[in-house]
């Protein structure tokens, strides 16, 4: 009888050739656990090449997930369990596995040729190189092929079911039901009965192998994590951002129009919204990044909520159009899923290096609000808030997410629409001056201009990139008027601080001298690192910034109240410089630009050293 051990968390990495279906396997395993109530965070990692040469380390695709019975924020630094479907996957990932970790290996491809392709002179399964791990090596491919034999698939198709066999085995190992994946496969392959039945058979065979073979002495169980009651789904950051736009437009009562050009890692935002036509969404795959944002500006002029999604290179191209949206004072939401730069850089890897271009990347005095999401599910809330500000203040708003948030997934409690804030577009339909006169640049108490849309009788007007006279909106080259308008636009954006909640410091002991300030996707690693630091009986305070422009009203005061302020970022210190410039405070930058999320253990060690150094002063 297999013993069942209850654990509070585990990190599992599925790894194989980029054609082995590892992303799907990881995604399904996540879903099988989500249904059981675990908290989770996932991190897919795949090569930039669509199909790198088979069996090479460069072609390895992996999917890591962290499951727990408590609230977690990161996919974990290191896997506890590695599922390796070929020698390349073993080679690429073994170094990340701590001593004592579990390795499940498909031995089918451990041939001399495949081994030499990845630089293994000898088969590592046959010598003592894996002695410090718990190794479970099976010919999963052969087992899967045998299980699907009745369905008459080609040899290739039959062997491709090995990922479902592996999934079944891991589902068994972590005491998860395969029922939901059976339903998923039934729907997914509804039109290909043989493929459907074979995949289900392989899944069940893998599960049954765990149950009957006695190959594993121990299986595991993770209890449900406490969570607010409600309907949940698994959501990636890109889907959450897309749905944030849909919900924002719906709450504003405006049609949503997305103009976009395909770009990694932001394309899914376009995909998900193109699949949202049934919810009334219009999408436009434009000829380039400029046309994408241009069409969105046109749609906003016509009375929609215009939006565009992109990544760094695309944001650079959109800069001039953002300036037009600033001076035309039209709503626009720009989602930038940041990736490693500059230039093409690391298209599939994550980075936070677009903060400067978001804050400053336009010519002229062209301020824009900048909001950063802190987790995959939070991309929904951050984007929704951006919609509200864009519509109510008639301004383009930048939402910064990144490749890690965009592709990563976590559980998301699906909100009812009426739980979300109201968005008041306040579009005007009557002249706003005596004698039937309409002033398009008359401002409300928040500084937002009077927005009228085409089709409205009596309010015809012309706007554009030339400086406008205050109030009337006529073209004006007047020097003093320009200063008035530059300051009015700046004051409007600064005034958005009224929408920005004060930062609340997380400083449980109240005795911390060191404050860690994060923004965006470093939230997870910083939270995990802070937890580790506090477990070592050190005091540490932390805040996480969501609004990068305008910054929260009390931020300067908070920063000044700590002896030392450390800003971990996946760039060379962009937020640190912004805070130093804003508040004249000696902020310390902690930067890592490896194209990966910060490592929580490394960050915790470094923070411990800083705290100890400060204590010794």
């Amino acid at each position, binding site marked *: 009888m297999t013993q069942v051990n209850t654990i509070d968390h585990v990190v599992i990495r599925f790894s194989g050739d980029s054609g082995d279906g590892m992303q799907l396997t990881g995604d399904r395993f996540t*879903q099988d656990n989500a249904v059981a*109530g675990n908290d989770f965070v996932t991190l897919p990692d795949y090569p930039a090449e669509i199909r790198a040469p088979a069996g090479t380390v460069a072609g390895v695709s992996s999917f890591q997930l962290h499951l727990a019975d408590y609230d977690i924020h990161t996919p974990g630094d290191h896997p506890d369990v590695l599922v390796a479907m070929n020698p390349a996957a073993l080679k690429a990932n073994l170094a990340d596995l701590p001593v004592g970790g579990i390795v499940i290996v498909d031995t089918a491809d451990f041939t001399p040729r495949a081994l030499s392709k990845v630089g293994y002179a000898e088969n590592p399964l046959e010598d003592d190189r894996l002695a410090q791990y718990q190794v479970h090596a099976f010919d999963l491919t052969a087992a899967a092929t045998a299980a699907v034999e009745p369905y008459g698939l080609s040899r290739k198709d039959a062997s491709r079911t090995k990922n479902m066999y592996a999934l079944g085995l891991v589902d068994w190992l972590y005491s998860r039901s395969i029922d939901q994946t059976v339903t998923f496969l039934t729907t997914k392959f509804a039109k290909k009965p043989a493929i459907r039945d074979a995949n289900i058979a392989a899944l069940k065979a893998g599960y049954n192998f765990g149950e009957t073979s006695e190959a594993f002495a121990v299986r595991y169980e993770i209890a449900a994590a406490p969570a607010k009651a409600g309907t949940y789904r*698994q959501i990636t950051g890109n889907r959450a951002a897309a749905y944030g736009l849909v919900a924002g437009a719906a709450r504003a009562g405006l049609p949503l129009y997305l103009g976009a050009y395909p770009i990694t890692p932001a394309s899914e935002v376009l995909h998900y919204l193109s699949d949202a*036509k*049934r919810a009334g969404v219009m999408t*436009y795959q434009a*000829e380039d990044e400029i046309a994408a944002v241009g069409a969105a500006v046109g749609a906003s*002029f016509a009375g929609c909520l215009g939006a565009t999604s992109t990544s760094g290179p695309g944001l650079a191209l959109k800069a001039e159009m953002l300036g037009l949206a600033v001076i035309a004072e039209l709503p626009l939401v720009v989602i930038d899923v940041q990736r490693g730069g500059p230039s093409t850089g690391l298209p599939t890897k994550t980075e936070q290096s677009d903060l400067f271009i978001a804050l400053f990347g336009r010519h002229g005095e062209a301020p824009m609000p900048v909001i950063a999401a802190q987790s995959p599910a939070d991309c929904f809330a951050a984007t929704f808030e951006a919609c509200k500000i864009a519509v109510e203040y008639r301004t383009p708003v930048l939402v910064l997410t990144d490749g890690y948030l965009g592709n990563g997934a976590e559980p998301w409690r699906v909100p009812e629409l009426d739980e979300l804030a109201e968005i008041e577009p306040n579009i005007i339909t009557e002249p706003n001056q005596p004698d039937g006169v309409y002033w398009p640049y008359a401002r409300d108490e928040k500084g937002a201009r009077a927005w009228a849309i085409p089709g409205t009788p009596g309010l015809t007007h*012309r706007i554009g990139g030339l400086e406008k006279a205050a109030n009337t909106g006529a073209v004006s080259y007047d020097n003093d008027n320009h200063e008035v308008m530059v300051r009015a636009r700046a004051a409007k954006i600064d005034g958005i601080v009224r929408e920005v909640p004060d930062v609340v410091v997380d400083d449980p002991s109240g005795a911390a001298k060191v404050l860690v300030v994060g923004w965006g996707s470093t939230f997870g690693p910083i939270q995990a690192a802070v937890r580790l630091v506090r477990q070592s009986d050190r005091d540490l305070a932390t805040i996480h910034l969501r609004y990068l422009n305008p910054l929260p009203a009390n931020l300067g005061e908070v920063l000044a109240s700590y002896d030392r302020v450390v800003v971990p970022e996946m760039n060379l210190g962009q937020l640190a410089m912004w805070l130093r410039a804003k508040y004249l405070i000696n902020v310390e930058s902690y930067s890592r630009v490896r194209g990966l999320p910060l490592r929580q253990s490394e960050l915790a060690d470094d923070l411990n050293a800083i705290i100890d150094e400060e204590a010794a002063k």
Partner: protein
Amino acid sequence: MTATIPTAKSGLAGVPLALSPLTRKDFTSPAEVRWCPGCGDYPVLAAFQGILPDLGIRNENLVVVSGIGCSSRFPYYVESYGMHTLHGRAPAIASGVAMSRPDLAVFVVTGDGDALSIGGNHLIHALRRNINMTILLFNNRIYGLTKGQYSPTSEQGKVTKSSPQGSVDHPFNPVSLALGAEGTFVARTLDSNRAHLTEVLKAAANHRGTSLVEIYQNCVIFNDGAFDPLKASDGMIKLVHGEPIIFGADGSMGVTRLADGTLKVAPVAEIGAENVIVHDAHGDDPQLAFALAQLTDSNNLGMAPIGIFRDVDRPVYDDMARAQITTFADESAKLKAVSDLLKGRDTWEL
């Protein structure tokens, strides 16, 4: 899978009409027109404002979008909704307007530098998609607003401040370019012929899909007389659908097709009246239109056809895009659809 494609309709179908007739004056904004005295932009503005009452549309359902350049000041002078945007990007912005609002008549005003140089990409993609808008391309063969550099339609050898030894650029033929992009309505007219200008603009507005009208437009300051060679010569070939293509003094010259399919210009007396080809702007085959466009002497303008080269129906991008989108009987039905979208199919309850 083949989707249902709505039939192309009149260019203005879906745009509400004025209840009482409007006049040219109703489409004249109070802004002072600031083009140079004698600029070819004036007659185009006048002709445009002149056709609007005939189109019957309301001021508020008219949107004029422009890029950057002298001609792009145009929207300020038309009493309608308008947007003066970025250099070259007007077709992109107008695409967003046209897609999201079938009740608007959308016009783009652009120039040779705006449309063919910095904005070339947007122009060709608008034409290939066939988005319902009318593009007025003011071609003065020079950069006017930046004070006189050669443009993508300037003749080779043009001496300007940026080409003191003569430009070495080969000029674009905008009509050929538009036909190459498979534009469904492609025409050429000129600022000095009010009747022709009016007729062509009206036909362009009534075409559903992207209409491109190249307008030969004189810049009195930096390229005065650019079209005089054409006006002075017998080489202006007036294309009229269904009519034989004859031109020159007393219609003595004609266009015929040789055995190898190419077009030849020759005296009618030489080729025989029966061999003069009859213009067909509505034919499926674009080759005639392209061959006619190629009769343009893009460098010296000793010869150029004017009129409607091509006017054919093809399903319109924005009609098709809108047809794919679910419409809802009321707001609550839409909110339900949004709610369902957010939930997806793989949910669980806690």
